[in-house]
């Protein structure tokens, strides 16, 4: 997939942004029709996060033509820079996204963002950094959004809980990254005899980070409707192993080396391979932008975590 073109410019006048974006798209020269599916407001509080945001947008753009408004709290006069990027796929198909970087004081940012939203399209807020529910910028930006995306690996489960207070629909990238693991763990019990074994599961052993371990246990508790004890160990930044004991039988999913694959072990069956590596973070973000409604399963797991 090739990136076809991009244009850019800077301004201190938000009223000029639309015409600059039109020029970046080719303006009257091409008379191109804009096909944009959503607004993505990104809270990027520092240069490192701005950089990673731009990288993520390069990945998200081809599947979600969007207007990204990257908001950075900063002292001094409001500054905005605009760019338009297009990607060319098979059969010369082309999609384009727009990007506006806005730096302004925390008080000015919400109104700046509001003036830049494309009308009538859904608004997603991707909040990076610490988060609490006591108001301020997070609350104001969340108030504009249909869905808020956070990462509990960054803001902690308390931060996610705060986001749930601020918005109707919340997505957690860390939870989304657990999907291959949850699928593999569910797969341990896909056979009729294993479904019965689920009744005897009382504890789960997880080797991996605390947030993921708590979410995994929360998911099992809410899905099975029973108390499941969590035993966690390990200092890795990634999940390494999930073990469930049902009576005297052990059900196991474990990562194998650093590859995408792991193995699943069910008593009485041959071990089999499972895909465990989650998609990259930008791909997780792209997936969350495909959904507007709240994820009931996640909310229940979070509550039980």
């Amino acid at each position, binding site marked *: *997939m090739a990136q076809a073109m991009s244009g850019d410019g800077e301004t201190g006048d938000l009223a000029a942004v639309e015409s600059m974006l039109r020029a970046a798209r080719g303006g009257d020269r091409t008379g191109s*029709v804009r*096909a944009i*599916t959503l607004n993505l407001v990104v809270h990027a509080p520092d240069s490192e996060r701005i950089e990673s945001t731009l990288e993520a947008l390069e990945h998200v753009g*081809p*599947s979600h*033509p969007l207007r990204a408004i990257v908001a950075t709290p900063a002292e001094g006069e409001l500054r905005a820079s605009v760019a338009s990027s297009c*990607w060319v*796929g*098979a*059969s010369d*198909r*082309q*999609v*384009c996204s727009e990007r506006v970087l806005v730096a302004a004081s925390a008080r000015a940012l919400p109104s700046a963002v509001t003036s830049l939203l494309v009308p009538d399209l859904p608004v997603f807020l991707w909040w990076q950094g610490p988060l609490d529910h006591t108001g301020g910028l997070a609350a104001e930006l969340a108030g504009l959004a249909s869905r808020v995306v956070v990462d509990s690996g960054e803001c902690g489960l308390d931060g996610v809980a705060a986001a749930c207070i601020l918005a109707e629909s919340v997505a957690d990238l860390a939870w989304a990254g657990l*999907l*291959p693991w*949850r*699928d*593999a*763990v*569910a*797969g341990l*019990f*896909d*056979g*009729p005899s*294993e*479904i019965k074994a*689920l009744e005897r599961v009382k504890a789960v052993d997880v080797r991996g980070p605390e947030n993921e371990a708590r979410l995994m246990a929360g998911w*099992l508790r809410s*899905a*099975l*409707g029973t108390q499941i004890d969590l035993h966690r160990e390990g200092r890795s930044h990634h999940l390494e192993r999930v073990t469930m004991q049902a009576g005297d039988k052990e059900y196991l999913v474990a990562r194998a080396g650093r*590859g*995408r*694959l792991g193995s*699943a072990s*069910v008593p*009485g*069956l*041959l071990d*089999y*391979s*499972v*895909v465990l590596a989650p998609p990259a973070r930008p791909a997780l973000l792209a997936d969350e932008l495909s959904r507007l409604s709240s*994820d*009931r*399963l996640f909310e229940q797991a979070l509550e039980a975590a």
Partner: protein
Amino acid sequence: MATTAKRPAPNPLRAGLRVGGASDPTVFVIYGASGDLSQRKLLPAIYNLAVRGLLPNRFAVIGYSRREMDNDSFREFARTAVEKFSRTPVDDHLWQAFAETLHYQSGSFDEEGFKVLGDRLEAIDAAHGTGGNRVYYLSTPASFFPVIVQAMGATKLNKPPGFARVVIEKPFGHDLATARELADVVHRPFSERQIFRIDHYLGKETVQNIFAFRFANAIFEPVWNNTHVDHVQITVGESIGVEHRAAFYEETGVVRDIVQNHLLQVFALVAMEPPAAFDADPIRDEKAKLLRATRPMTLENSVRGQYGEGYVAGEQAVAYLEEPNVPPDSNTPTYIAAKLEIDNWRWAGTPFYIRAGKRVAKRVTEVAVQFKRPPHLPFPTDAVEQLEANALVLRIQPDEGISLRFGAKAPTPTLALRTVNMDFLYGSSFLAEVPEAYETLILDAMRGDGTLFTRQDSVERSWELVDPLLERWRKGTPQVYESGSWGPDLSDELLAREGRRWRRP
């Protein structure tokens, strides 16, 4: 008639998982695993499902055919097929895991062979926990279908401990009588719900978009009827000739190859009533109702053609009769144009013109809905002389998208209206790689979702619509048309006599 196995209690950990794939443990049996279809389509499609993480965790393929192979050589065969025909390159790491799921059993298509296959399947169930769930894919010539399903019934392969589904490829008979004979044979060991008749056209994303376009947008449906639509044109054009398939094509011709299945299915999607739900039965019920309301094709309302020599996209092309293995006196039609009439409230009086042909000007599949002119044009006559009626075109392939033709004022000193086209390419909103039709359909068969598969009543009704014409066309000769044209002159006359003309795709 067999019944579907009772489903066990669902796994509570599966509830709400956004995996999107198949989760029931399954063994996928390919009859004719060493053949062309398996190599070109099935094995690459299954591999791509693995790449996308859509296969069940507990999954196995067992290839079955007469050719002697062991597991290792079948895995090598599959790897070569995937390397050659997959839309994604082979990932060595993933392949290692995928290859472990591939098994092979050689044998003949009879009870003796299938007893051995049954033992093998039980052994796989025991080792891999696949729970006796089976999808059987008949990737063999159609002449083997009756033999295979009969032997499956005799050896109880149709009644495993879990579910059993059988996927069969077109042709579903050669005419109405043979379609019913085939159905009788297949219905002895399998119920209709267990049978998945595959028409790969319905697996195309672009065809499924007709559903979305019609039933997810409130602005089009109110004008989708005989009050507003003058007529509809459906075109399935191929720029290629019969190539190396002359023997097959001599047996089928354009009606059996394209019209009875692909084209009538697209026609049904365009003209059917909205289903109550996007589920197999409501959709297939509406398609069947529409086909029942359609009049059988007649000699008077149809034109047949056969391609002569000419040029297609600048390349010289030989006539059909000069193609290798085509008899010099063949009257096989390679082109059809016809008028379909629907006797229902929505469409009575609004004709659907269809055309399909080989070696036409370009490869295209599209549906053009031609609207009626406004009842009164309050403009000077010379201002509207270039103004055409509104048209909405659903382009299925290539360049999938939608075009809307409407009138606009030209920026001239005197009032003049011109026709303009507003084009929308699906690719301008979604650049994601589109899965192959076989991936979609194999996954649906594993999930037990029959929405995109053809039900027997629609198969039979489709034959009822085309059989009278096929009978009349057994004699006589088709009109020769120049390769690279849009068909014979009579095709234009079919519309011209009703004051209409074909659109140029």
